[in-house]
């Protein structure tokens, strides 16, 4: 199996953003997706750093793709979507709008925020030129297996959500702005101080979700630490690792060791917690009763 690094979901300074990709150039990953997935207002802050990052990664032998936004409503968002194909690297669509903007017959990748739940959808995307699909994180193993079989027939590589806080919802409303008593149009970038999202607890203090502007993620960090063999068996091509602000290059190396059978699932889970300062883990969407469940040992 390969390792893909998904786009950064959070609002980082341009320096931190570039540092991530400089670090990934020497990390043991095969593919890197970059660009803005969550909020078009963030893009101007690091837009000029994208091309240099792409060059750095390509020079380091990585495959590179650019993501679309996951919810496209405004004129400037449509323009940004139309401009994606002009960059000359693979485009990962995370909203069908981006597919409508690609030249007819162009090859493309499909991100986890496009609803690919079944063989019919996979087949239609394959006919339109899709070559890779990262499945929605909420799919159970049985669906992953069926879609891998369909992908093998259609020539589509299947990727699953391997590591990172899970993108659970996207909204027209900015929750960070709302928390600060502002509106989205006048948000003053309320999300910039939370490089991994802002923890949302239940009223009795249980960590539950993570707020990231218009996006809501899980508090827990999904990890396929215990499912590498099962995913390999059903034909998954790659694990997707989602960037976090602490210990991310180490995290990539740890997954590589796991894929190489150098460490087991328990060791990986322990190490992931160590390098991230105690992240809570989950893998319930794949095999549990609910998404938040964790099949491994408690921390």
């Amino acid at each position, binding site marked *: 199996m390969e390792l893909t690094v998904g786009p950064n979901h959070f609002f980082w300074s341009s320096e931190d953003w570039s540092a991530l990709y400089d670090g990934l150039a020497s990390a043991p990953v095969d593919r890197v997706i970059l660009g803005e997935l969550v909020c078009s207002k963030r893009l101007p802050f690091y837009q000029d750093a994208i091309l240099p990052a792409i060059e750095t990664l390509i020079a380091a032998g990585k495959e590179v793709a650019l993501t679309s936004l996951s919810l496209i409503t405004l004129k400037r968002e449509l323009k940004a979507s139309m401009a994606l194909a002009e960059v000359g690297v693979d485009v990962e669509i995370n909203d069908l709008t981006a597919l409508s903007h690609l030249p007819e017959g162009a090859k493309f990748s499909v991100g986890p925020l496009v609803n690919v739940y079944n063989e019919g*959808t996979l087949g239609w995307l394959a006919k339109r030129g899709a070559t890779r699909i990262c499945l929605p994180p909420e799919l159970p193993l049985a669906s992953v297996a*069926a879609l891998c079989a369909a992908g093998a027939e259609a020539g589509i590589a299947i990727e699953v959500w391997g590591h990172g806080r899970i993108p659970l919802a996207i909204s*027209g*409303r900015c929750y960070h702005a709302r928390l600060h008593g502002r509106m989205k149009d006048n948000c003053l970038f309320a999300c910039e101080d939370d490089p991994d999202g802002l923890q*949302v607890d239940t009223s009795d203090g249980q960590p539950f979700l993570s707020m990231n502007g218009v996006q809501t993620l899980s508090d827990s960090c999904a990890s396929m630490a215990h499912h590498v063999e099962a995913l390999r068996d059903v034909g998954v091509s790659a694990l997707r690792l989602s960037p976090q602000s602490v210990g991310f290059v180490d995290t990539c190396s740890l997954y590589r060791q796991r894929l190489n059978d150098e460490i087991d699932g328990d060791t990986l889970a322990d190490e992931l917690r160590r390098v991230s300062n105690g992240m809570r883990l989950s893998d319930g969407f794949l095999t549990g009763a609910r998404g*938040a469940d964790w099949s491994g040992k408690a921390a």
Partner: protein
Amino acid sequence: MEIVCPAGTPAALRAAVKAGAHTIYCGFADETNARNFPGLNFSREEMAEGIAFAHGHGSKVLIAINTFPRAGSESLWHAAVSDAETAGADAVILADIGLLAYAANNHPNLRRHLSVQAAAANADVINFYGSEFGVKRVVLPRVLSVPEIAAINKDTDIETEVFVFGGLCVMAEGRCSLSSYATGLSPNMNGVCSPASHVEYLEEDGHLSARLGGYTIHSVGKDEPAPYPTLCKGCFGAGDKTGHLFEDPVSLNAEQLIPQLAKAGVTALKIEGRQRSRSYVAQVVKNFRAAVDAVDAGRPLPEGMLARLSEGQAVTTGAYKKTWR
């Protein structure tokens, strides 16, 4: 403008028709529709009878087949599309790309509407659904303001339908797995959100807590009204703040915006609530029918008719006003 009204049961369908609904939408009693609640929805026979009744009274019936088919089990959804055509449905409401392609190829004469679950939020993608799958109408996601809806209608010939009353999704529809994160069951896969099967109420220290999948969604004094624990309308804490961080426990009422929605080029107004009683449905339909008749005739809106139905519950106009964001 056309009023599109929910019916969870044959009785509600008849009540809506009699109350003046131009169009009724409903679903089969299985996981193919996004209101897959116990005791709700239509058998194949009930659907055929309901459609015959509606057609006899000049109303149309749309069938929602708007969950995302499960890999390995698509035949269940394919059968629903086929049975919808056999039953005489005026259109099917679909969200899944694969199912849209299937319907367009195998049932080309069955009119296709795009479900809100597809969250098609701009004219380019709406036109794409039109050219790829022959979609004739799109139900717009609840993330758009009225001026944005007007702009979309300028750039597409595909009809638009918008929600005006009832439950309010805060997240882009069809793009939300909060419910399955907490309970294992989601709108996309199972047709349910924050399902009652996973709700428990606990009384502690004079407080009544409502939990969903083990997560406390809100807690109230034991004599206060306890709203249903819908996940996105819960009370949470973040940083030094506590409250309804995503949305207050409100429902949508855009009645006052009907004239603006008409001006924005909207074809149909949709009422949420297939889980509601037939008397509720009849009341809401009567009120909205009177309102659109007034607007179509150039008269002012009848006054405050829906206040009674929303009694005890706060209402919002949601994303239709830009300040909501």
